[in-house]
């Protein structure tokens, strides 16, 4: 029988980790191995409820299980947050274009993340760290609303010890005990000195942060072809057919979600 690209396979929720009050990480064990490259996405399904795209936050080198970090924002994500360990959901994928690591070799990699946008960026960090000798330097600038809203709280102390990796964090609104930066994530960019001739920047976060983050990077002197964005659009099929994810002439599910900024900079109204 012909392959049916619309049909998910079963995935068991092995573990649920609370990250913040509205973000959880789901450890999934699909009934069939789902391979992915960092930055690609999968579609998760709950029968009778719906389906939505998510980018795995785990390392692509870990193939038995996939971790997905999900913020509760609506119908499907709300239902997912109500689910328990041991329950079954649907998964299909992976889809789209991930990060082109070859382009990053021997360069300084600046990673700019906001909120749950840290999900694909954790996968990115894990891939970068695994091949750390191929990159000159890795700098992560991460912003969240408050210290409580920071995801992967346990991972940061580990990461801080890593060779070649520098981490700067900010929160919009500090709380007692917060000793790092207070302010929008873009202020962190003023604190890092990157070798602009030899650096790429990767941005992932809410639309508003993507916009101001990118504009700031351009201000600092980054060329559009050295900025990589993860675009979020409405998706239905994930296969480049249903038209929902259109971004100008591109379909984000097929041509993205990771885009070089120079490819899409002339598409009108991309930040909406």
């Amino acid at each position: 029988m012909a392959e049916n690209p619309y049909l998910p396979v079963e995935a068991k929720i092995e573990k649920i980790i609370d990250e913040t009050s509205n973000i959880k990480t789901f450890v999934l064990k699909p009934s069939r191995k789902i391979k992915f490259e960092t930055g690609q996405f999968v579609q998760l399904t709950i029968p009778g409820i719906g389906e939505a795209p998510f980018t795995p936050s785990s390392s692509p080198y870990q193939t038995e299980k996939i971790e997905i970090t999900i913020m509760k924002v609506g119908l499907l994500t709300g239902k997912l947050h109500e689910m328990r360990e041991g329950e079954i959901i649907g998964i299909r994928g992976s889809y789209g274009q991930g990060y082109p690591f070859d382009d990053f070799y021997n360069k300084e990699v600046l990673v700019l993340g906001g909120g749950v946008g840290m999900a694909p960026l954790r996968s990115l960090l894990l891939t970068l760290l695994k091949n750390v000798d191929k990159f000159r330097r890795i700098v992560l600038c991460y912003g969240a609303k408050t210290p409580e809203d920071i995801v992967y709280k346990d991972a940061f102390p580990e990461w801080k010890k890593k060779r070649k990796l520098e981490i700067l964090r900010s929160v919009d609104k500090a709380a007692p005990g917060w000793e790092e930066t207070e302010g929008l994530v873009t202020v962190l960019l003023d604190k890092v000195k990157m070798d602009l001739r030899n650096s790429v920047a990767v941005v992932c976060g809410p639309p508003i942060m993507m916009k101001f983050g990118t504009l700031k990077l351009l201000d600092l002197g980054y060329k559009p072809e050295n900025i990589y964005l993860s675009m979020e659009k409405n998706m239905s099929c994930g296969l480049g057919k249903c038209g929902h994810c259109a971004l100008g002439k591109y379909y984000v599910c097929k041509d993205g979600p990771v885009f070089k900024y120079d490819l899409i900079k002339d598409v009108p109204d991309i930040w909406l």
Partner: protein
Amino acid sequence: MKFYINRTDWGKFLGQISKTYRIYAPQEIANELAYQLLAPENVAQTIYGTYRAVQPFKTFFSLPQEKVTVVTSQPEKTIVLGVKNCDLKALQILDKIFLEGDFVDPFYRERRENTLIISSDCYQPKDTCFCTLLDNNPFPEKDFDLNVSPIDNGFLLEVGSPKGESFIASIREDLKEATSDLIEEKENKRKEAKKRVVEVNREFETKRPFSAIVKDEYASPVWEEVTKTCVECGACTNICPSCYCFLLVDTENGGKFPKVKFWDSCQHTGFARVAADVNPRAKLYERLRNRYLCKYEYRPENFGIVACTGCGRCVEACQGKIDKREVIKKLSEKEEK
């Protein structure tokens, strides 16, 4: 090679064939032509040389609503008769979307492979037809299995594919090669038809191609002006032979992950909305404009094919009386004045 067959022999042949194929052909219903499933005794009443049917050709391949849980093979072979060039052109777009790329839609492919396309020339274009404005002709030149051009008391047959070749194999020996006189007569009829479409659309001609107009005039106030009468019904996209967008909906019954695929419309408010109520095309005119950009700029950039064939269906279907030709003309005038 072109053949001549008289009306009676052709009718007989179709009668034979209709035992193994389901045959759909344009029939007159309420002053419109609509594709209907033909009973063997009715095949002779097919209407060929007029304009396109009211249903878009896509309905044979991408169903308005379809369960996509299990791929089942198409039980019967189908023939669609009297398909016009505007619909053949539109099918090119659907083929690109559903059959190419990393993923193939098996449901579409199944129907596509089991359908034989018998197109025909269009000698009586409607006032809403504007294929010539988009450099298309009211007669097929490729992308058919067989084309019939009504002539004298019969038809000129043109074979367009191996599928068409084997389809007529059983009568091939009895077919007469078309004389040069008949071929010339057909060419004249085609020229006449084309002239008529050009005439009808004289007032809508623009200096720049549609693609340049929609791109250059992105910020024009005309978009908002023309959208005033749009009621967001989605008729324009549903009836369009080259609109392919759909929505997958997860239902509860039937299989582990039952999914139904519905035609969707980019004109609807929520089409592009993402979480937290962020909507890249929140305003109706932005959605209307996007449809024009999709047809005249984006798909041509992707595939080298203009995704509006000028069939005029959306012009007739629109509750708000929005005529694409008028919109483009208005957009072009702001600049060209």
